[in-house]
């Protein structure tokens, strides 16, 4: 899950990381009021879940509150890479003396949090990594021991020569590492971390991604979720504990297991169709889940046929079949569907399905071909 910059800054501020004062506004008048309160030059920053906001014109400098109001007027409602700006962060502008980078990610290869710092901040860190990798310094932290003060200091020495600034940066790195664990982040990033003309080290940008698996214990962070920034059907699916990703095709797919769901999509494409979605009903699927899944698929106006592919393991075919039967009786869809059930409790499942006369297929490739045929697509 992603959170906005202003929310990430709230989390950082809570942890004691210095960030400039600021608040989020949804109208130009609010922006004016916030800027008046700050009472010096401000930055007006669009709050959308994409990178490159500055280049797109979504981050501007305002000399005073009146200017902030005018800029907020322009930026609110702006389209940045397909997303509409609904909020702006109005925050004190800093006099920048130097810019560096600090980030922590969950690294799959080492199975550890990796801290990256670079004195070349304020630009795309990937560009730095590609062009001047010698300017990036990394540390894979022992997750059991945690980050030690000397390690944070060593990293800080890569950024600054002034011991006062080194100490400030080391403290920020320690606190950032604490935030990473405390909120179950998969990424925390400050780009840039600046020194201002008063020689203070300040985080003027903030990025945080959260591990979805940990949201059950991160209520404060989950409350930050911006539903406006998401596909409504994906929100509905998540509430029902289903993995769903909306795509643009016409074959609605309901599959158990992520790997098989991906493969089913791959085969739809291979045989000339276009998948309307990725949908994994997960393990131990109850009939209720199946009903919700079918509702979501049928709610997509692009869907012209429904493909149900179940290979029972922990999921029982009879459970899925019961759900399908109930869903079809309840929803009475006019869109054609084809079902394939194999694996655990397969026989019971097929017997239950007979009561609604759904066309079935015996193999993976056949159920895909049949669904494409029913949608009237393909070669």
């Amino acid at each position, binding site marked *: 899950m992603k959170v906005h910059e202003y929310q990430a800054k709230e989390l950082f501020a809570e942890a004691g990381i210095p960030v400039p004062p600021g608040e989020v506004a949804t109208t130009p008048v609010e922006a004016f009021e916030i800027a008046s309160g700050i009472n010096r030059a401000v930055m007006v920053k669009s709050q959308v879940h994409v990178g490159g906001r500055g280049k797109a014109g979504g981050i501007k400098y305002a000399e005073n509150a009146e200017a902030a109001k005018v800029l907020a007027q322009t930026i609110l409602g702006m389209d940045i890479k397909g997303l509409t700006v609904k909020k702006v962060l109005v925050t004190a502008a800093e006099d920048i003396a130097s810019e560096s980078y600090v980030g922590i990610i969950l690294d799959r290869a080492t199975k550890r949090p990796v801290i990256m710092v670079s004195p070349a901040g304020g630009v795309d860190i990937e560009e730095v990594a590609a062009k001047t990798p010698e300017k990036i310094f*990394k540390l894979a932290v022992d997750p059991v021991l945690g980050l030690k003060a000397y390690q944070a200091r060593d990293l800080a020495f890569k950024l600054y020569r002034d011991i006062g600034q080194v100490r400030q940066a080391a403290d920020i790195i320690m606190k950032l590492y604490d935030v990473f664990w405390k909120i179950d982040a998969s990424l925390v990033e400050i780009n840039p971390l600046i020194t201002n003309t008063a020689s203070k080290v300040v985080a003027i940008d903030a990025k945080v991604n959260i591990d979805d698996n940990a949201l059950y214990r991160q209520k404060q962070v989950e409350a930050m979720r911006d539903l406006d920034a998401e596909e409504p059907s994906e929100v509905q699916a998540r509430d029902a504990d289903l993995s769903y990703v909306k795509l643009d095709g016409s074959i609605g797919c309901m599959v158990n297991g992520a790997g098989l769901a991906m*493969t089913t999509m791959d085969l739809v*494409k291979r045989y000339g169709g276009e*998948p309307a979605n990725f949908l994994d009903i997960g*393990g131990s699927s109850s009939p209720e889940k199946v009903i919700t899944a079918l509702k979501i698929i049928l709610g997509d106006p692009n869907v012209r046929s429904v493909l149900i592919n179940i290979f029972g393991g922990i999921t029982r075919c009879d459970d899925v079949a019961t759900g399908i039967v109930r869903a079809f009786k309840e929803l009475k869809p006019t869109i054609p569907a084809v079902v394939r059930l*194999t694996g655990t409790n397969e026989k019971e499942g097929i017997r239950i399905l007979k009561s609604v006369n759904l066309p079935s297929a015996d193999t993976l490739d056949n159920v895909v071909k049949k669904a494409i045929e029913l949608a009237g697509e393909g070669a």
Partner: protein
Amino acid sequence: MSIFIDKKTKVLVQGITGRDGSFHAQQMKSAGTKVVGGVTPGKGGASVGGIPVFNSMAEAVKKTGANTSVIYVPPPFAADAIYEAVGAGIKTVVCVTEGIPANDMMKVYPHVTKHGVRLIGPNCPGLISVGQSKVGIMPATIVKKGNVGVVSRSGTLTYEAIWALTLAGMGQTTCIGIGGDQVIGTNFIDCLKAFEADKSTKAIVMIGEIGGSDEEEAAAYIKKYVTKPVVAFIAGQAAPPGKRMGHAGAIISGGSGTAAEKIAALNKVGVPVAGSPTEIPDVLKELMSGTKKKASGRKTPAAKKTVTRKKASPKKSAAVGKTTARARAAKPASRTRTKTKTKNKKTAARKKQK
């Protein structure tokens, strides 16, 4: 022969009184597995279909002499269940549970490694050594005794591949699902190594998916150490970048982790990649009937398709490019972190100060 589990495997089921735990305890038992007990704190003394239930792993191991455990407890308690198994002296832990926070697993991993425990999963279907033992949730009805080893990051997709092999008369030694999370215990390389060493395994099927670089690392390992024929399948060629496809680990982060990349890496070391799981048996037969040496640089139609698609949507790839390079940049961390190029750093810092 087989890998990781065999006739001597004695299994404890952690979370045996739950819906999934009780159901699959019975399924394992009827598949011939020695299920010697189960654990649910507070339900000690009970019995689930004739299987004794204990309050703790320590007690259960002491009373039963179990060497393996399988975990069905919910995500908030799963990491603790792994620690408990390790503490009780279990040597192989199969964690079926899906949805364990990555931070928990980052701490579990060094712990199991330190104690020499083999962890399989989490978020995995477990494994079957055909005719000997089944630990986890794979349906025993789809396997057949033979000489193919199967390893996969997926669950149901693995069943699909196994079923295709069985229908084609190609039986298996061990079929193992290693899990779809970002932080897992046993990986492809561990399994390839074990299959290479297992005398009865004559060929290997490897099923990967988008996300991470385990397949690429496996390809490099195959080139160096694996003499047995290997056929692969990679799921997620139609997956859009930047979206998590069910599994926590199945996400394309820009240029890194795409199916096309993985297929190319495998093809490069002579591992053919099937276009559909149902085509795996044919590809494998072809490979085995040919020279023992793997066909090199064999391009699959699937590979070409993905490449074209990638070109068609440069905008999307660009949008997610950020994460990738970051991931890539982070990768050699453990190797290079001590080497610092002081001069450059100082110059850079100085420039910034001005």
